[in-house]
């Protein structure tokens, strides 16, 4: 009678060697822990070892959106500094909006209507224009008080 492994055309070595598997796993874990989670070369290298279906899933996961807190904290462009330019998402002139809410991405300074960019960033984390990561893990320390102040002046002045 043939053995299980002969019937299934597998080698008993790869199937039932918990010792070896544990070693491999711990080696992978060590490697993984040495990685900076944002190191794109290593991550793509690891991803290339995956079968294509999984790669796609992996790609989706690494492409997760930004937090609402991050989106809310994006610096507003003060009304008098809003450029005479089109939003790259809706192709409307920023200034044609009676109450424009324009933000600037902290990393690359590209400007968008808040309404447009917030939809994109809720499921993505790249700038639509330059594709740079918008760096949503970094703590923002940008002074928005000026913009708010000016708005207040407009309202009560």
């Amino acid at each position, binding site marked *: 009678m043939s053995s299980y492994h002969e019937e299934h055309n597998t080698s008993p070595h790869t199937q039932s060697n918990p010792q070896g598997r544990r070693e491999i796993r711990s080696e992978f874990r060590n490697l993984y822990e040495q990685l900076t989670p944002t190191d794109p070369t290593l991550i793509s290298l690891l991803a290339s070892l995956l079968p294509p279906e999984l790669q*796609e899933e992996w*790609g989706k996961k690494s*492409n997760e959106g930004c937090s609402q807190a991050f989106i809310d904290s994006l610096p507003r462009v003060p009304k008098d500094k809003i450029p005479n330019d089109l939003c*790259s*998402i*809706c*192709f*409307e002139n920023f200034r044609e909006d009676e109450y424009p809410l324009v933000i600037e991405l902290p990393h690359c300074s590209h400007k968008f209507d808040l*309404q*447009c960019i917030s*939809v*994109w960033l809720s*499921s993505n984390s*790249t700038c*639509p*224009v330059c*594709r740079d990561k918008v760096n949503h893990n970094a703590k923002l320390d940008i002074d928005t008080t000026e913009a708010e102040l000016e708005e207040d002046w407009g309202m009560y002045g």
Partner: protein
Amino acid sequence: MHNNPQETERLISDPVPGITAEPHDDNLRYFKVSIEGPEQSPYEKGIFQLELYLPDDYPMEAPKVRFLTKIYHPNIDRLGRICLDILKTNWSPALQIRTVLLSVQALLASPNPNDPLANDVAEDWIKNEEGAKNTAREWTLLYAKKE
């Protein structure tokens, strides 16, 4: 949000050479597209019909584009589906119908058999490029005729 009528208007008033895109009468999200085969490519002198559909989430989601004309190309499969990064993972809402169609035209000018969608065609393209290009030329003459 996205001013789709304006984009459509611009497509018609300021067309891209070799590319036409007309919205369907009953459904403004559905476009009938034609792309001329680029010069000095095996698709030269062919007119390729495509369909383009803007999903509800456009421009947050890429348009869906498909070849209706049969074409012999390593990145386009027999159902007309196109392997193009900007239509999948590299989509950006700053891209437009116009840029998408230009990219499709560029794909006709430079096929990439190393990132295939039609595996048999890609294999043929790598093993015997001249032969594959001849087949592509024959298919262009047969199927991509001017209407």
